[in-house]
């Protein structure tokens, strides 16, 4: 039984590691709550979940969760997760990553994971900046936004991650913000249920770096900004690009069924080597 004075999510957390290391009001903790809520709605067992993350504030999340996890090298969690899934396709594999981790150094792993449609649930916390290392511009920083590496404002064009991963072939893609935690939890539920590459972009507040550099120094200012500028994809699809400047398009981008990579690979092994593949596997099982 859970203790009555505790958050409903405390039973999933490594209590001895709390309070978490995140700045007061950082969106990472809210995304974690939304994950637990989504996991409950999907009726998924935490004991069967294996997490992987890269490097960044967002990538520290799995370390707080009572499940097996790999805290890997910067940009590589999808590669490690691919290994977990192919080693044991019965695991539910979840990746926590940041915009820098997933889209800059790890950009190739992201698109190829999507292209293969391997059954992973990737939760990318997009705070539009490198939080952990001091506010450098990331591939998702909006044009004109300020960062420690863009004192005159970023002039590069950013990636739209949900669109990028959709185009690369993911079979479930959604984007919500930390100001819409219920919708975010629901998207995570759908992502966990999807048998294939699922990508949930959680737009989140790093008020410490992104906020302070962009005239929104408190988490509340950043949450209001996200709430006020979100437009549902269904509505946005009927608007023209000028009307959408500075807006955050939220909602479901892709939800479809397609052949999944680990399943296909195991089918191939079965087909080509039949019993032999079982004997190879048993060598590693001990008997």
């Amino acid at each position, binding site marked *: 039984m859970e203790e*009555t004075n505790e958050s*409903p999510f*405390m039973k999933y957390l490594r209590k001895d590691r709390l309070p978490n290391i*995140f700045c*007061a*009001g950082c969106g990472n903790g*809210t995304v974690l*709550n939304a994950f637990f809520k989504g996991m409950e709605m999907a009726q998924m067992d935490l004991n069967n979940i294996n997490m992987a993350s890269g490097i960044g504030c967002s990538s520290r999340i799995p370390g707080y969760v009572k499940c097996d996890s790999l805290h890997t090298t910067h940009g590589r969690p999808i590669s490690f997760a691919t290994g977990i899934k192919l080693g044991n396709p019965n695991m539910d594999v979840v990746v926590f990553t940041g915009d820098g981790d997933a889209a800059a150094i790890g950009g190739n792993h992201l698109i190829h994971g999507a292209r293969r449609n391997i059954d992973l649930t990737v939760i990318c916390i997009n705070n539009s900046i490198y939080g952990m290392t001091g506010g450098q511009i990331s591939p998702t920083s909006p044009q004109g936004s300020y960062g420690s590496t863009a004192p005159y404002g970023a002039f590069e064009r950013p990636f739209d991650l949900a669109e990028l991963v959709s185009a690369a072939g993911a079979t479930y893609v959604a984007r919500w913000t930390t100001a819409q*935690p219920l919708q975010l939890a629901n998207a995570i539920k759908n992502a966990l249920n999807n048998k294939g590459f699922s990508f949930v972009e959680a737009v989140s507040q790093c008020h410490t770096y992104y906020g302070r550099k962009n005239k929104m120094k408190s988490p*509340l200012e950043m949450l209001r900004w996200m709430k006020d500028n979100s437009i549902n994809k269904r509505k946005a699809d009927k608007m023209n690009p000028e009307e959408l400047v500075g807006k955050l398009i939220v909602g479901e981008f892709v939800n479809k069924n397609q052949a999944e990579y680990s399943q296909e690979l195991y089918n191939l092994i079965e087909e080509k080597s039949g019993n032999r593949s079982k004997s190879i596997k048993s060598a590693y099982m001990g008997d």
Partner: protein
Amino acid sequence: MIKLDPNLCKGCNICMEFCPKKVYEQSKTLDKKGVHIPIPKNQDKCSKCNLCALMCPDQAIKVEEDDEQ
């Protein structure tokens, strides 16, 4: 009943901002960590929507159902 763990709360005020029923109030005093811990003052107005607990980045809130007391 709202249970707010002062050891976990970092005083970000997200619960206060997002509660649709304005249950939380800003405290006037700082706690030993130097933060203002919100006070769940208007508990009679709480609709038990659980939004505060879902948003709290530090898992500091429990919204108790009436029959749990």
